């Protein structure tokens, strides 16, 4: 998949630029990058770093990764995007939910090398400058959390649900949010927040 380089260049910020340079400094910046480091069918060796590029929140990050690194690990530890949370690390709690091409997935169950070619959106990608996104606002207004640890994953699941189904029925909300656990048990408020975010999104768009 080809990235829209114009869109990417336009969204470069100072911090993003530094992050990209920081992680990509060891990589030759010229050189032709295929969508997959291994698209020429070369084998990435264990413990050796291989070049990949990830499209996260509208920016391209050129990175050196080990094949065993998960997308979750790379987002947090290499890109500093700590909005995505570490929970069970076995695809059961949903705290690490991100969007890949607008579809919710667990970053803990996805190898970073496998995330190439997708447009990845994390919680940080929902911000408009200092302003919260609609789902984030609805969560705040409806008090849809207690400790807040699961909230980024819940919000990403809700974003994915509303992108797929802008007018979800109550059952569709329950089903769409069923891949995310909340140990505080804020489910009632989470449901209300998602319902509200859907209505607000429809009202404004």
């Amino acid at each position: 998949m080809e990235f829209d380089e114009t869109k990417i260049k336009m969204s470069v910020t100072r911090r993003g630029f530094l992050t990209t340079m920081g992680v990509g400094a060891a990589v030759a910046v010229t050189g032709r990058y295929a969508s997959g480091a291994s698209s020429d069918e070369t084998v990435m060796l264990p413990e050796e770093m291989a070049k990949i590029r990830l499209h996260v929140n509208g920016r391209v990050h050129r990175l050196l990764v080990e094949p065993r690194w998960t997308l979750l690990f790379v987002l947090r530890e290499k890109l500093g995007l700590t909005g995505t949370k570490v929970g069970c690390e076995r695809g059961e709690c949903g705290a690490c939910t991100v969007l890949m091409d607008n579809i919710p997935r667990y970053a803990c169950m996805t190898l970073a090398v496998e995330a190439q070619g997708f447009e990845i959106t994390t919680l940080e990608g929902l911000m408009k400058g200092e302003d919260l996104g609609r789902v984030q606002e609805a969560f705040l207004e409806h008090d849809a959390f207690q400790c807040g640890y699961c909230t980024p994953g819940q919000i990403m699941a809700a974003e994915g649900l509303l992108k797929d189904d802008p007018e979800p029925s109550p059952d569709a909300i329950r089903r769409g949010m069923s891949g995310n656990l909340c140990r505080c048990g804020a489910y009632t408020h989470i449901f209300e927040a998602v319902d509200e975010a859907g209505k607000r999104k429809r009202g404004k768009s």
Partner: protein
Amino acid sequence: MLSNFAYVQPQSLKAALKQLETPEARLHAGGTDLLGCLREGIFGAKKIVSISGLNAFKGVRETSNGGLRIGALTTITQVERHPAIRSRFRALSQGAGEVASPQLRNQGTIGGNICQKPRCWYYRGEFHCLRKGGERCYAVGGENQYHCIFGGENCFIVHPSDTAPPLVALEAVVRIVGPQGTRSVPVSRFHVPPSEDFRQETVLAPDEMVTEIILPPAPSGLRSSYRKVRARRAWDFSLAGMALAITFKDNTVQKARVVFSGVAPVPWRSKEVEVAITGRRLDKETVARAADAAVREAEPMEKNGYKISLLRGVVEEELLAAQSGESPG
């Protein structure tokens, strides 16, 4: 952190097969079961061969005779939502919709779903059980409330798939490609019961892969459905479930394929129920007889006797619903 492995993403089937020849190579499709197994130390991997770039095996196509070819890399969500599967092979759409959670359905593939490793908590835990090369099955005399009531021998797992039982009921065929070429195996013979080999879940050799699943055309009068009972609405695996593919003629059962989930080490075809209902209307009397027949051969363990009444209930409710046409498809 996962243990180290090499990784390759071949761009052709031929290259993928060549890579799979590496000893201890493991296939990566959606990766959801693979990463879980690697983390839990169920098996190791020297090399991950990712076939996620093989676009030829993504999506659903009509066959010339009115059936469907489902690429092995089609996601569970895509299978659930595909209009032709929804309208003509409803049991499969329903089964796909019951798998795991939305995120896992978005990532997991139909090929991977039928190749899943068991979910027995001894197998997934730190126990070196029979299936992992050890000496015994810890479910025997242990915590066996989620284990099988049919087909247990040496090992007492239940098969975790919600798509395999509908595929067996709908008489689907698996296309398998390996170094020797291509072969086709009915899904009903794809899974290996522990009585034959308790170390192997499927007939796949390590250097083979599933490329497609082929559904034969749906006969007219077909009503198919999948019902899954579980303790929790999301994630959970089946405690007892049933896929039905019944062809009706004049409101009478002309032909029936009945396959249970959650009660046996492989998708469990109940010829007893099929015989009890074929040639009959599904009235209360027939359905009660079918429910008796369903569990007659059951051999519960110490803690899973509840599955017998659960399965009876599923059989009764679903057969009555099939007769009333509440499960058209």
